């Protein structure tokens, strides 16, 4: 790790999807960058347990409080809790907040699902009168989606379905062939009028064209073309094995730590400091950002570094927290918070899931179903017309993630098989395990939440973390749109399982409040630092630039005004790219900092 100098062009706080993208784009533009990360240095190439078996891990890899998604999950020093860094919930709220403390943040373990938001998703209020319109259109964003997909590598297909955008020709990599259970689910769904199409996933199904793509992405920029070409050449295509949630040592999937940070560092324009917990953004007497204070976690000393521009990309809620903690005489309610909207209108994704057991899948001829680890096929939202006609009791859509197959057995694969076997043991139990293995399917709904004023975070006046920094307190209330949507998910999944001739294994709840996952649990939290057209009703402009402090940007999911059913990471990167283009332009014109 490099030691921070005293002064930079730009400080980027956070090294995940947004921070990695900003640091990379600034660096290849010749800007001197300090990249600060609150967690430790992390290298997927040397640290990923690629083929390691459950039996080699404690508890067969089962989740524990310290490793909630299992021993081999890539997350370092975090999860639902980070030691010494609490958060709190108001009475009646059970918000869950997944935070790692590692270079690359959550991009190391994420699901890689990379769905574009569509035209409706940028203008939802114009369409149904609810929530907020974004200040830009899908057409404004489409080029940035193309660029992001080309840069990181996304497989998928263009199906031309409503509000499910196609990428430009040649942008997507070919999707892998569907697995057996996915084809079986596709047939059952077809009978119900539900489309099953190739998913869009940030995994290389083939090596990237390292000779052509750098020039397409960075015309007339030899430095960018060199470092990106080298980076792309170092990435292997997926070899159709090992779980992506562990990370990928051959760099076949997208992680900021394998795709964005290495080429950013290779420019020589980036200093990276890890274990740097940013407390606040500092300002001068004119109210312009001058740099940040951070706690060096190794020395526990407070450090200050200066820059012409500060970019917060610490994740939506962490960036809101930094702003709220950046109080001064000029900004008594926190920096860039003249609108009072910092921390407000936070969103997660609506989640519900149902499992089924399918007799037709029992004793399937053994074959390899590992594939890309992520799903090959998915269900995009398909009831736009019914919704527009008022035939549904919720306003926005969801997509369905499909699970199943003869995946590597884990410690819990045969838990509660008693439900099917009449309590067999001995040779009969052994035969039952062989029979039922691979006959289970799962359906997860991921739906749009409409922002509301009852969902927000604020500083907890009574609690600080181990670095002395006030922590966030969460407030949450779903609307009927989310609850009814979760109920609809469960019923739909039960219908699909029954049309496959299967048994529904989960409870189908009459009340959506019992079906919906707790807020935060889907780990798609966005909002809280909203963008807009009007400084009185938004924190940022459409380029993620603070209205009040023009050399301050927030480029993570904090700027989001809606949270479509499309998993946010791809859009975070596209929005960050657009913002960074604007920032580079302003730096080059000398109109900022």
């Amino acid at each position, binding site marked *: 790790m490099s030691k921070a100098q005293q002064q930079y062009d730009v400080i980027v706080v956070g090294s995940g999807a947004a921070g990695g993208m900003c640091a990379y784009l600034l660096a290849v533009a010749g800007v001197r960058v300090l990249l600060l990360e609150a967690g430790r240095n992390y290298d997927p190439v040397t*640290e990923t347990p690629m083929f390691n078996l*459950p039996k080699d891990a404690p508890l067969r890899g089962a989740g524990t409080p310290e490793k909630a998604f299992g021993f081999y999950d890539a997350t370092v020093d975090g999860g639902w809790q980070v030691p010494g860094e609490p958060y709190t919930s108001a009475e009646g709220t059970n918000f869950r907040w997944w935070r790692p403390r590692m270079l690359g943040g959550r991009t190391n373990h994420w699901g890689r699902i990379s769905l574009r938001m569509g035209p409706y998703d940028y203008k939802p209020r114009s369409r149904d009168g609810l929530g907020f319109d974004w200040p830009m259109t899908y057409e404004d964003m489409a080029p940035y989606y193309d660029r992001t997909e080309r840069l990181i590598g996304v497989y998928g297909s263009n199906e031309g379905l409503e509000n499910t955008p196609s990428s430009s020709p040649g942008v997507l990599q070919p999707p892998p062939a569907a697995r057996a259970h996915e084809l079986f689910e596709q047939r059952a769904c077809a009978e119900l009028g539900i489309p099953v199409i190739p998913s869009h996933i940030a995994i290389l199904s083939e090596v990237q064209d390292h000779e052509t793509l750098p020039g397409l992405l960075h015309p007339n920029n030899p430095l960018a073309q060199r470092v990106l070409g080298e980076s792309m050449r170092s990435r292997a295509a997926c070899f159709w094995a090992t779980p992506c949630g562990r990370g990928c040592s051959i760099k076949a999937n997208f992680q900021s730590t394998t795709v964005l940070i290495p080429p950013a560092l290779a420019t*020589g324009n980036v200093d990276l400091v890890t274990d740097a917990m940013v407390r606040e953004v500092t300002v001068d007497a004119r109210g312009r950002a001058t740099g940040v204070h951070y706690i060096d976690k190794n020395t526990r000393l407070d450090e200050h570094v200066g820059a012409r521009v500060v970019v917060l990309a610490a994740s939506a809620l962490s960036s809101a927290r930094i702003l709220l903690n950046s109080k001064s005489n000029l900004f008594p309610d926190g920096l860039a918070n003249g609108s009072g909207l910092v921390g407000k209108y936070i969103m997660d994704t609506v989640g519900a899931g149902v499992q089924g057991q399918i007799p037709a899948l029992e004793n399937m001829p*053994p074959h390899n179903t590992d594939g890309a680890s992520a799903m090959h096929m998915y269900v995009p939202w398909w009831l736009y017309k019914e919704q527009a006609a008022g035939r549904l009791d919720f306003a926005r859509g969801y997509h369905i993630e499909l699970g199943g197959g003869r995946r590597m057995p884990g410690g819990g694969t045969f838990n509660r098989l008693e439900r099917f076997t009449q309590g067999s043991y001995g040779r009969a139990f052994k035969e039952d395990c062989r029979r039922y293995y691979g006959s289970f399917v799962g359906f997860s709904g991921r739906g749009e939440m409409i922002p509301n004023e009852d969902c927000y975070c604020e500083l907890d006046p009574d609690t600080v973390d181990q670095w002395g920094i006030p922590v966030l307190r969460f407030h949450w209330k779903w609307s009927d749109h989310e609850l009814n949507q979760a109920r609809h998910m469960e019923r739909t999944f039960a219908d699909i399982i029954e049309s496959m001739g299967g048994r529904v294994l989960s409870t189908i709840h009459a009340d959506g409040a019992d079906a919906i996952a707790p807020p935060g649990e889907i780990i798609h939290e966005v909002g809280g630092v909203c963008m807009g057209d009007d400084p009185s009703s938004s924190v940022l402009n459409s380029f993620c630039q603070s209205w009040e402090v023009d050399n301050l940007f927030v480029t993570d999911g904090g700027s989001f005004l809606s949270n479509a059913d499309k998993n946010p990471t791809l859009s975070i990167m596209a929005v960050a790219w657009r913002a960074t283009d604007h920032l580079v332009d302003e730096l080059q014109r000398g109109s900022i900092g």
Partner: protein
Amino acid sequence: MKRGEQRTSEGREANERTLPMLLPMNRRMALKVMAVAAATPGLASCGTGGEDGTGGSPSLGNAVPAGTPWDPDLLSPVIPWERILTQDELDTLASLCDVIIPADERSPSASQLGTHHYIDEWVSAPYERMGRDRVLIREGLVWLDGETGRRFGEGTRFRDLSPERKDDICSDIAHTPDAAPEFESGARFFARVRDLTAGAFWTTEEGMEDLQYIGNVPLERWDPPPPEVLEFLGLA
């Protein structure tokens, strides 16, 4: 289910032809692929900057796990807690594991693959969920020998019973919903041991080979499901 039974035998024949050597081959192939990947010139090793110590280092190579429960070394896992079951408990548990998963023509018995040691690891872990299992399973082992004594004479140990007599007890506790009131806690104990035994057994190399899990192997390309699978599912 007549059709299902036919499918079973067809499926197994197909696998007995393809299965041998798969797992060892896979590991060798995996190592080979990993070696190739590691040797590929990547940015992590290209050394284009940072030598002067002023930053811009392209290397992420000084990343090291702290070795704590929050940041364990994933490549060389250790189990940081002591195991608590006594040898006597382990002996009885091994015997029960083998009632649940005996050896057959395809794979060894549960205790031959050490499932009782895994259950020891599990119930000894310093977590709430495992703590509940610790109580359930240690109590259950006491109950099991107590029940053995009641049926077959004071002081008789479960592990010394004939297969028929073990069955006499286990058949009363094997199915939780059917357990008589006096066997309800015994049935909960048996169900948990069965789950843990299965979890331990099928995650060994021998278990995965028996189960005919044939992934975790690098492939040059991804193919659609084989024709016999599509035919089996009526999708051909």
